[in-house]
């Protein structure tokens, strides 16, 4: 009799147990072996720090974080996202570094009603014509850094500019963004080859043009090559170097070092940004990762996990109610390391942008120093095209 009663009680509790124990699943597509491997590693460190601090839970409820490398390849990322959706039944998605992957996997996730929080790419397509309720450009919109840099150049009184980017759509978008911020006519636009190693020809053109400053959008290894060669040619004596934050963050500094001193760059975050959450984050990151200063990629990744955590808390763990999750996510009611911000109608942030300069800190380390604010609350130019 007692056994029967015990079994009945267990049977009654079982469904409740099953519900209580279904963990909330976050699918993360890591970028660890492709062209953005270095940046993907930074992002992964940011993710892991946040996950560790939350004790592997979201909103206090049990959670599972699936991390798999897709090597920056849109085809493989597509494959991975299919698996996450169909086999693992994820509730949230994040991870890719490149815009091309975001564009490849976004539509699938939106159709499956899975919120995609971006830890880096902010393609204009998702800001405008293809905007979607399930997309959250948590980090920034791609053009922002370039527009801010354009304004910085104009504000600093650079009259003659040469601007450079690789010959692909993101490069062209970048230079267009810069021109919008700069407002005046630009001296020369130079397009280089994607993956180009030697910039001697372009540097010679630069020397011949004698501009006040040069603006470069050369992500990854390209930027490293260019800056080293730029300084070696002695051009940094007479021409100022300006770039977007992602060409001048910790990963590039670690690879280039002294030649980068004096470079101005723009971003929505700096590691010495003065707010509580950021101070705690930078300290925790340094402690966890052998005194390494976090880059903007780590900061963005950290923010994404925290944003998901806040939304889960707000919906009390009932993530299957997607409408409620979207409302919670849209509130952006979490302590971001860049300070408070809010989303525009297209789910891209309206936030301040700062200008930083690369300097030697008192302890001898070369790093970015926050210099000033460029935009108080910048919103991307594509929001008008978003008709939801």
């Amino acid at each position, binding site marked *: 009799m007692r056994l029967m009663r015990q079994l009945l009680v267990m049977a009654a509790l079982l469904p409740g147990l099953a519900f209580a124990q279904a963990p909330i699943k976050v699918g993360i597509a890591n970028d660890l072996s492709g062209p953005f491997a*270095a940046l993907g590693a*930074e992002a992964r460190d940011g993710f892991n720090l946040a996950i560790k601090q939350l004790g592997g839970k979201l909103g206090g409820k049990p959670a599972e974080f699936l991390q798999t490398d897709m090597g920056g390849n849109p085809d493989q990322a597509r494959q991975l996202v299919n698996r996450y959706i169909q086999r693992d039944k994820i509730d949230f998605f994040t991870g890719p570094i490149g815009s091309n992957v975001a564009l490849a996997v976004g539509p699938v996730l939106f159709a499956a009603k899975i919120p995609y929080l971006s830890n880096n790419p902010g393609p204009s397509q998702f800001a405008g014509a293809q905007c979607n309720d399930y997309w959250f450009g948590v980090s920034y919109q791609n053009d922002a850094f370039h527009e801010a840099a354009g304004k910085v150049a104009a504000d600093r009184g650079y009259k003659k500019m040469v601007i450079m980017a690789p*010959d692909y759509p993101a490069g062209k978008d970048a230079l267009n963004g810069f021109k919008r911020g700069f407002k005046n006519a630009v001296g020369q636009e130079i397009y280089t080859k994607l993956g180009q*190693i030697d910039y001697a020809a372009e540097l010679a053109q630069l020397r011949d043009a004698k501009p006040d400053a040069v603006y470069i959008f050369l992500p990854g290894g390209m930027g490293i090559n260019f800056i080293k060669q730029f*300084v*070696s040619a002695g051009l940094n004596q007479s021409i100022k170097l300006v770039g977007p934050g992602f060409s001048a963050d910790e990963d590039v500094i670690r690879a280039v070092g002294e030649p980068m001193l004096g470079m101005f760059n723009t971003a929505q975050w700096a590691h010495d940004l003065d707010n509580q959450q950021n101070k705690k984050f930078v300290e925790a990151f340094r402690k966890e990762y052998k005194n390494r200063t976090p880059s903007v990629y780590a900061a963005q990744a950290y923010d994404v996990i925290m944003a998901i955590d806040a939304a889960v808390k707000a919906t009390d763990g009932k993530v299957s109610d997607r409408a409620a999750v979207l409302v919670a996510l849209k509130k952006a009611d979490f302590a971001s390391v860049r300070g408070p911000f809010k989303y525009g109608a297209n789910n891209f942030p309206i936030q301040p942008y700062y200008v930083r300069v690369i300097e030697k800190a008192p302890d001898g380390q070369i790093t970015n120093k926050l210099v000033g604010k460029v935009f108080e609350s910048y919103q991307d130019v594509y929001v008008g095209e978003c008709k939801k």
Partner: protein
Amino acid sequence: MSTTLIAEQLLNGLQFGLMLFLIAAGLTLVFGILDILNVAHGSLYMAGAYVAAQTMQVTDSFLAAVIVAAVVTGAVGLVLELVLIRRLVVRDHLAQVLGTFAIILIANDVVKMIWGPAPMMMSMPPALSGPVQLLPELLYPAYRLLIIAVGLAAALGLYLFVTRTRAGVLVRAGASNRQMATLMGVRVPLLFLGVFVLGAMLAALAGALLGPVTAIQTGMGEQILILVLVCIVIGGIGSIRGAFVGALLVGFVDTAGRAFLPALLKLFFSPAVASSVGPTLAALSIYILMAVVLVFRPSGLFPARG
């Protein structure tokens, strides 16, 4: 377009070409003598760069970095030859390409495991980090002059080695007729080992030399390998002279394409068209050059073997 600019771009073409030659020389030497297309040559170049960067970070001496890189990579090449290359030498070209491609896959991950995915820093030797005044208006980076000097020295050195020294004569004998060379007492396996190690050390030298001006990261070998392959195909595989000519051609065409093509197009087309077609055409220019050369000379300009 001033004469200074043109002069500078010519120097740039020369410099880029010699940069490629340093890497192409080892590759074409190995192909000419061992008859193996070693696509992992790019990985040896990468290894040289990484070891040089690491040595530089520890000792702060550029010379030490170059020497250590050459020695360590030479040792890696030695092991590679004994364990793998000699088995691939007797196989067909496809097996060789695939076998050495497998080495690329393994090498990239090994490098990532040792040094992590982030690019490595190698600072320039302070003495060479600024520009030198060549002409009243022309300031040229001292480091690039070093590259030109080393490239020319390597070309001269290899030429003398192959034509004047006894070892060089053996190398040519082994290349042109392996069986005859063996019959005449040349220890061919030892010769092959020596040539392969020499090729590896040349690649390492290139890696160490280019370390301060390029990004040292996984995959750097494959990026430059494509360009180097184009050089030796144009020049004729197996021939040092061909590699030299091919590399210089590629260096000049690529530089000229990037420097002058957009401006040239602007003379005939609207700026919008020029700025969108120009860079694409410049990127394609060396491949078009290669296709054109192969149409008229299907074995390259100076094929080593008839």
